Structure formats: structure tokens, C-alpha cells
């Protein structure tokens, strides 16, 4: 190839590249409101947790929706879970949001406070879904917003679950970890570092602090997150529980646990080197894939003293939100309704192994056949259980959780005490709560 030919080829490639980009830019969008079958309205839908499980599931549901609604076309955009918050925040700041997006509870306040989400309670009560979304899920969804409004229609809410290997427990003659004492006894008994086996896979790295709240409150039994405008996080009972939990690091856990995020933790557990793991119902399919049905059992977080009397941190809701900049709100709402309808909600939750928010979906046979799910529903509905709503509505909530991840590692490495750790955390929450009250009132 001569230099001249090479230069020409490169110029041609660059021109084609730019042309492709320009064409791509102008090809988006759909018709105006009220599309026809020939010229359907296009709405954009952002999935906050794209991946090998969810993407095909949403594509299937979208195909079903488009069959039922030929005048609406849904453009799916899959966002990797780890980057979804940044993508949403950048889109809001830049004024380029989708029509519908799946939003997790801890993102609701931040997005709603910026005016990015449309309050949807009125739409919900005027729709076929009225009375069909479980009260616990609706309460959790409203509790996630800075103003107590409803901004997402929950598809699920995910309570923390203690997963344990029933085969190892049976072989060692141990009771199921229904209480925290049973949990610590089992963790100690099942640890054998020489054999590369540990009682518990602890999440010490990214996302660790999300899981500490259920540990603290289920253990201490404290039944409210705020008292007199101040958090109960650093109550002595919570501090004692967190100190005991941290003390098991490198004793009943592997040394590497201090850096474990979700993937590392679940790999340690499903790889067979840990007997217990704390997460939500979202990881159930991984455990079935690794060990088959019935080997890994999921329980609600252990009770403080007496089995059955549980203090449960309010599950984090997740569901579709209607973005206020949408040019096609009616079509977008139709898709939200579809996603949370009996059929779609049941399919979605059955495939992801999570707790349906639609009450009709909760009655489906697959729910009662899923032990971990049935146990969680039973625990949440049990009158002796206390549900503790947190400060999920604080716009800074998730930022604070992120900031506390490094201090938690310091606690695990015994550089600070649980008292120092919880005091620091409580101070941040109290400051955020005071700012919130100042801005939005009580």
C-alpha cells in the first residue's frame, strides 16, 4: 500500500466514522405523543443493573409490552450496576434523562430533590394497580423519598438475608443461625484456616456499610433509627453488636475479607470456602448454581436474643420511576404500569429470586415454593417483628455509606474501636438529618 493510498484510506475511515456518528445522533427518538402502529412513540428505558441476568429478562418483557402496545416502542439502555448512580446524576445535571428508569431506594431522594422524578401516587391510585402493591413495599418506597412522596412503583424490596450451608451445619451438628449467639458459635465451629474454610464471608470492602445496619439493629433490637432528631446508631447496644461483629474478622473469616466487595464475597461463599454469608435475596440464584437446590438456606437476619422476635431494617425498594423531563409521560407511565403488573412483576421476581411487590404476584405458587422468599415474607408479616425505617430519604445517605467504608476497614484492622466508628457515622447522619430538617422541615 502506498503512502498516498494509506492516507486516503485513513481519511475515508475517519469520514465514515463521523458520518456514522452524525447519523447515529439523529436517528434516536420517536414520534410525538399519541403514536400509531406505523409511527410508534419511542420511550427510553434505563436499566440500572444490566448484565447477563437482567438484560435478557427486560428484553423479553419489553417485547411482550410492545406486542400489547403496538403504538409504543421501548428503547432499552443497559447500564452496568456499579456506574448507574453516576450515569443518572450526570444525565440529571446535563438535562438528558430517560423517560423511565429503574431506581433503587437510596437514589430516590437525590434524584427527586433535583426535580428529576415525577411524583406518581396520583397516577397509581387512578390505575389498575391501585391496591395491588404491598403496603410494606409502598411504605419503603415513600420512606426513601426526601418529602415522603411516592416516586417509584416498587417492583421488589430486598431484605437482608443470612445465607448458610445447611450441609456443613448438619455435618457439624449445629443449629440454624436463628440468633446472633448461634451465628457466632457456628462461625467459630466451622472455621478451619488450615483447610481454607471459614465460618463467615464478610464484606469488608465496597458496599460493606449497607450491610452493617441490619447487623446492628437486628442484634441490638433497637426499634427506631432516630430518637429526638438524633440517630440511635451509636447507642451502646449497637456499638457492642458492631464490635462483636468486627472482632470475628480474621478469626472466623479469611484475612482477605477486609477488601471483599460483593463479587469477592459471593465467590468465597459459592466457591466453598465460607459457611455463611450476609446479602439479600438477589444472590439466591448464584447459590443454586453453585450448590444445587436446597443446600444453601436463606434466613432473615438473626434475632437478638429469642429466635422469631426479629428487628428488621426496612428493606430497600427498587422500581421504575417516571422522569419529569419525559416528553411522553403517558406512554412512559403505561410501561411503568406494565412492569409492576401481576404478570411482569411475577416473572421478573421469579427470575431474579426476589420478593415481589405486587400482592397478586406474592400469591403465585413459585413464591411459596421458594423457601428463602417465603421465610422473608413470613418474617416481614410477623406481628412480633419490628420493622425499622432508616434515613434512606436523606439525600446524603448513600454518600455517607460510601464515606464510612474506609473507617469500617480501619475497625476491622483494629486501628479504631467500634465506638469511634459508630460515633463518626452517627455524627455524619445527624448533620445530614439536621440539614434535611432545615431544608424540608419535619
Amino acid at each position: 500500500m502506498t503512502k498516498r493510498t494509506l492516507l486516503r484510506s485513513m481519511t475515508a475511515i475517519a469520514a465514515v466514522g463521523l458520518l456514522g456518528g452524525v447519523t447515529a445522533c439523529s436517528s434516536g427518538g420517536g414520534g410525538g405523543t399519541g403514536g400509531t402502529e406505523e409511527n410508534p412513540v419511542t420511550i427510553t428505558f434505563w436499566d440500572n443493573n444490566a448484565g447477563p441476568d437482567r438484560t435478557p429478562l427486560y428484553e423479553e418483557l419489553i417485547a411482550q409490552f410492545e406486542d400489547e402496545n403496538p403504538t409504543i416502542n421501548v428503547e432499552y439502555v443497559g447500564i452496568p450496576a456499579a456506574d448507574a448512580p453516576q450515569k443518572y446524576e450526570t444525565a440529571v445535571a446535563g438535562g438528558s434523562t430517560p423517560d423511565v428508569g429503574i431506581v433503587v431506594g437510596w437514589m430516590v431522594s437525590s434524584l427527586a430533590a433535583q426535580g428529576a422524578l415525577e411524583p406518581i401516587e396520583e397516577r397509581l391510585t387512578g390505575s389498575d394497580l391501585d391496591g395491588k402493591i404491598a403496603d410494606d413495599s409502598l411504605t419503603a418506597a415513600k420512606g426513601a423519598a426526601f418529602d415522603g412522596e411516592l416516586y417509584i412503583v416498587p417492583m421488589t424490596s430486598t431484605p437482608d438475608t443470612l445465607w448458610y450451608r445447611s450441609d456443613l451445619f448438619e455435618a457439624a451438628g449445629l443449629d440454624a443461625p436463628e440468633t446472633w449467639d448461634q451465628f457466632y458459635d457456628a462461625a467459630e465451629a466451622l472455621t478451619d484456616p488450615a483447610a481454607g474454610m471459614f465460618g463467615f464471608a464478610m464484606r469488608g470492602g465496597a458496599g460493606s456499610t449497607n450491610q452493617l445496619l441490619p447487623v446492628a439493629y437486628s442484634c441490638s433490637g433497637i426499634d427506631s433509627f432516630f430518637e429526638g432528631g438524633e440517630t440511635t446508631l451509636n447507642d451502646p447496644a449497637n456499638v457492642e453488636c458492631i464490635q462483636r461483629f468486627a472482632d470475628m474478622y480474621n478469626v472466623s473469616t479469611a484475612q482477605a475479607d477486609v477488601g471483599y466487595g460483593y463479587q469477592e464475597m459471593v465467590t468465597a461463599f459459592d466457591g466453598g470456602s465460607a459457611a455463611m454469608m450476609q446479602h439479600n435475596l438477589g444472590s439466591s440464584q448464584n447459590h443454586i448454581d453453585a450448590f444445587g437446590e436446597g443446600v444453601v438456606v436463606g434466613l432473615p437476619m438473626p434475632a437478638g436474643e429469642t429466635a422469631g422476635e426479629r428487628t428488621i431494617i426496612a428493606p430497600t425498594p427498587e422500581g421504575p420511576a417516571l422522569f419529569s423531563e419525559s416528553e411522553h409521560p403517558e406512554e412512559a407511565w403505561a410501561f411503568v404500569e406494565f412492569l409492576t403488573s401481576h404478570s411482569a412483576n411475577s416473572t421478573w421476581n421469579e427470575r431474579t429470586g426476589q420478593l415481589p411487590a405486587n400482592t397478586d404476584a406474592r400469591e403465585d405458587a413459585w413464591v411459596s415454593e421458594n423457601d428463602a422468599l417465603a421465610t422473608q415474607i413470613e418474617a416481614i408479616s410477623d406481628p412480633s417483628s419490628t420493622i425499622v425505617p432508616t434515613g434512606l430519604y436523606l439525600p446524603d445517605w448513600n454518600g455517607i455509606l460510601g464515606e464510612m467504608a474506609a473507617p469500617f476497614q480501619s475497625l476491622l484492622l483494629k486501628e479504631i474501636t467500634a465506638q469511634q466508628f459508630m460515633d463518626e457515622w452517627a455524627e455524619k447522619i445527624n448533620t445530614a438529618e439536621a440539614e434535611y430538617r432545615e431544608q424540608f422541615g419535619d
Partner: protein
Amino acid sequence: MTITTRRRTPSDFSLGRESTASRAVSLWIPLGLFLTFTLLPFYWMIVYAFREEGGTLPLPFPFTFEHLETVWNDLNFSTYFANSTLVAVSTLVFTVVLSLLAGYAMSRYDFKGKAPFMLVLLATQFIPGAMLLIPLFIIFRQFELIDSLVALVIADTVFQLPLCAILMANFMRNIPIELEEAAWIDGCGRVRGFLAVVLPLLRPAIVAVGSFAFIGAWNNFLFALMFINSNDRFTLPVGLNSTIGEYSADYGALAAGGIVAAIPVVIVFAIVQRFLVQGVSAGAVKG
């Protein structure tokens, strides 16, 4: 006087053997360890990409192309690959052309504020892309470039250009001006003189700068995720990240996708590595 000679015995070579042994300790063993450490992830990638799901052997056996077919056809990697190629090649072309122009100006002309200008160019390298996300997003939205590959080409070019221009300028300083002057005497203008005399000598620098630009654009994840809002316009790094869900990862697809993403970069390096070392080292020396 009698001169005796004797056949050299193996002990005479002991020094040489010691030298070989010490060379092994000081060079080959560390290099071998380093190579093992570097290549192990690639080995892991090949094993997972070409081994059937459920296989436990540390070898790509039972062998399968299933994961590659899945990522290429089902996970849309064919589209991501085409998008990445367009963005990376366009970035390469623009970066090389613009850094040639900027490099020539900085190496051949004296102008007021030249030193501060070069300092500013260098300083831009200390600003993380994430800090400029929202301003860039707003600018691109005003130009209606959000969800367009053009935005990626512009952003990638802008971020690659400062360092590439400095490298190019340093390389040009090493080319004597007398060569250009000779061309001018022979009747060439400045442009013709540059194209006929300087440009051929800049091949290592062009290769180095082009490689930086190509690889930088090829691997850029953040801009592709933020400025693109359609699945059909995402690039390979976003596609790769999408094989990891919050609660699960498809390791076969992840590894196969990794191979798809790595092959062009490996080929580019294999072709240009000779020029690359020459170009970078020449550009690193201040003339």
C-alpha cells in the same frame, strides 16, 4: 625454551558458566517470573473464553467457541466492536494530524507565552476526565452531540492531544532545521518542505502518538458510558462491564469479550512496537 600448550578443560570455562548462572539469577528468572505474572490473567482469560461452561480443568478443554459466538451475536459485541473501531481510528487520525500541526508550531516557531502554553498543555494531563464530565455533557448536549459517536471522538481527541502534541514537538526538535532549509532553497514552500522532508522522518513519532491515541480511545469507558444513551452506540468497554451484573457475572462471556477487546490492541502493539520505543524515547529527549 619450550612452550607447552594444553587442551582447555571444562574448568577453564567455570567463569563463563558462573556468568551464565548469575545472568540467569539476575535476568532470566526475574524476567520469567514477571512474564508469568503478566501473562497469567491472559491465560485465565483464554481458559474461560474457550472452555465449555461447567468445565473444571485449568485448560481450555472441552474446547468451545460458544462464548465468543454469544458475545459477538447475542451480547451485541459486533456492534460495540464497530463503534470502538470508528471512535479509535477517528481519534487516531485527528490526534495525529492536530499534534503534527501543534508540534511543528511549538518546535519551529518562537512566540510569546510559549513556555506557559506548554506548561498549560502539560497541566491538563493532571485533570481527571471524571471532573469534566458534567461540563462536557452540557456542551455536547448544546451541540446535540449526546448519544453520538462524534462526542466520543471529540472528547477522546481533546484528552489525548496535549501529551501527543508535546511528544511530537520534542521529536521535531531533534530533526535539524537545516534539512528543511535545504528543501526551501530547492524551491519548496514551508508546507511542501515539511511534507517532503520532515514528515518521513517523523514516522516513529507518528506511530507512537497514533498508538497512544488509538489505545486511549479504544479503552475509554467513562465517556462512552456517559455520553452515549443507546445500546447500539456503546463501545466495547461498556459492553464488557455489562457482562458483570450486580449479583452475578458471566465469566465465559466476560473472558470472550476481553479477548475481542484485547486482540486489536495486541495486533497494534505487535506491528508498531519497534517504532513505539524509538518514538517515545526520541520524544522524551528535550532538544
